[in-house]
């Protein structure tokens, strides 16, 4: 366990280092002179202003020196300042992040909770007649764009319940009912495609487990079908399922960025898209860094929890 953790920790550091290098290089890889492009919107740019901004961004130093000073700042939590307002970018990022995380966590929970009974049921009633239909439905679900589903929901709500305010955002603290009413449709739009994908994963790992000898033994002992399915099969089928849950969280976050736009929710998506349109590169850089590092850490912790629970993982 200790050796496994140590090895995974080294992996983690390497990946984080690589991620930081790529994100650091972002602003430096912009074709042409980044500073010129940044100041492009202003009509009267003096060479002095260019020098000032270049110095402010640290672009006048050798690359290695730039990276080490940038990394040092980053590790101390200074992720840079907005080019336009001069405010620390962390402020804005952490103001918006909780909204998008809400749109990641709730759909994941909803889809995860529904996927377990559904996946087990589908695997248990497995036969060649329904096989094709299930396969079609899960694939269709996976390929449904959540942002289209959200648009469809808004239209349906408009037709069926015209008084329901479906778009916009109010904080939970000021108006709990209004908050939940506005979050319901985006959560559902994100959860349904995720549900299809999770059901598919659980179904196939259940079918694999159900073919194994110990399941036949359990059935032969005369255990009830429910006991065999839930106590014996599901436990082992959960391993790939929970791993998928961790990996899908990143995909769901990406989906939430897009779905936010549909429902006019001022979350992380609007922040980063706005930052790109304003060429506010320090904000773009820091946003991607915070979220990616967050997901890398979450998946690292999930991996370690696994090794703690399942001794077989260590030998994998």
């Amino acid at each position, binding site marked *: 366990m200790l050796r496994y953790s140590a090895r995974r920790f080294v992996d983690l550091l*390497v990946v984080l280092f690589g991620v930081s290098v790529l994100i650091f290089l972002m602003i430096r890889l912009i074709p042409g002179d980044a500073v010129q492009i940044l100041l492009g919107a202003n009509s009267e740019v003096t060479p002095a202003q260019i020098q000032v901004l270049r110095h402010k961004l640290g672009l006048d130093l050798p690359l290695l020196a730039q990276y080490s000073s940038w990394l040092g700042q980053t590790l101390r939590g200074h992720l840079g300042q907005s080019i336009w307002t001069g405010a620390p970018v962390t402020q804005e990022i952490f103001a918006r992040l909780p909204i998008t995380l809400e749109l990641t966590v709730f759909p994941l929970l909803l889809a995860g909770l529904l996927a377990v009974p559904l996946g087990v049921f589908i695997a248990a009633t497995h036969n060649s007649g329904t096989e094709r239909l299930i396969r079609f439905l899960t694939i269709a679900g996976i390929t449904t764009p959540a942002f289209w589903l959200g648009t469809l929901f808004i239209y349906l709500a408009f037709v069926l319940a015209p008084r329901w305010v479906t778009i916009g955002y109010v904080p939970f603290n000021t108006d709990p009912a209004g908050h939940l009413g506005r979050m319901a449709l985006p959560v559902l739009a994100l959860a349904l495609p995720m549900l299809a994908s999770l059901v*598919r994963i659980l179904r196939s790992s259940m079918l694999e487990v159900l073919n194994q000898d110990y399941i036949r033994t359990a059935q032969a002992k005369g255990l009830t079908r429910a006991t065999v399915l839930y106590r014996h099969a599901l436990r082992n089928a959960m391993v790939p399922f929970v791993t998928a849950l961790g990996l899908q969280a990143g995909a769901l976050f990406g989906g939430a*960025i897009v779905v936010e736009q549909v429902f006019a929710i001022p979350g992380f*998506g609007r922040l980063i898209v706005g930052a790109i349109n304003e060429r506010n590169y320090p904000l773009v850089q820091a946003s991607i860094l915070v979220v*990616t590092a967050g997901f890398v850490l979450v998946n690292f912790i999930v991996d370690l929890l696994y090794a703690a629970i399942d001794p077989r993982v260590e030998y994998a």
Partner: protein
Amino acid sequence: MTVSLPARRSRPGVFQRLIHNPLGLLGLVLTGLMVFLAVFANVLAPAGPLSQDILAQFKPPSAGHWLGTDQFGRDTLVRVIYGFRASLLVSVGAVLIAALVGGSLGVVAAYLGGWVDRVIMRLMDILLAFPVILLAIGIVAVLGQGTFNTALAIGIVYLPSFARLMRGPALTLRGSEFVSAANALGASGRRVIFRHIVPNISAVLLVQTSLALSTAILVEASLSFLGLGTRPPFPSLGSMLAESRTFLTLQPWPALVSGFAILLASLGFNLLGDSLRDLLDPRLRGRE
């Protein structure tokens, strides 16, 4: 010198078996239809997606405009057809980049081994650490928008999956007897890779290409929807959905149809890839 191998039985039968499988057939029909619409858009709708008819704003579906018109009196069906073209162009370009570059990286890593292998695969791990959409957004932010840049951004996102896909079988093949034989006969590294290793992985590659196209279409649509993909008025399906969302309650057709078209495009490639996987890869048969 040529070595005659026993003819592969599965090859001639794949297409026949594919069209006898309802889901495979559906995938084939959907993708075929899409490619047809994309290729013959000019012939089918010579007026083009930008032709406006100010007198025919927000018309419901009719004989003249099968799916109605939008805020500028532009025909929704015509715009969807051109939307397929824009979406497919970017997605196919992206997957080609990913398959060629990513696949080569995987084969080279496996074939050369050692530190080259470690460096390449580490790089791929690092790319995989980013949430897909966020990585694509970041790359577009650097490169700027446009058809080629969007394709390149999505292509980079999919490098790791192709590199990993090709590395495994290439590694197995590297140790196999017929590759050793080719080496012993003095074949160059490049010849071994392209003449002996790549053809043996082509089935897996075909499946992965189809499945990657399915998700690339969704990523392209997301980027365009955010206004970071192909630029309006050139109507990619995602930007069309974003644009027509503003008058959703007045005229729902353009928004709903363009989104449904994204679904159909992605669904077609996924069904095709999934069915091909069943047919071509006996090890995976019965699994998913």
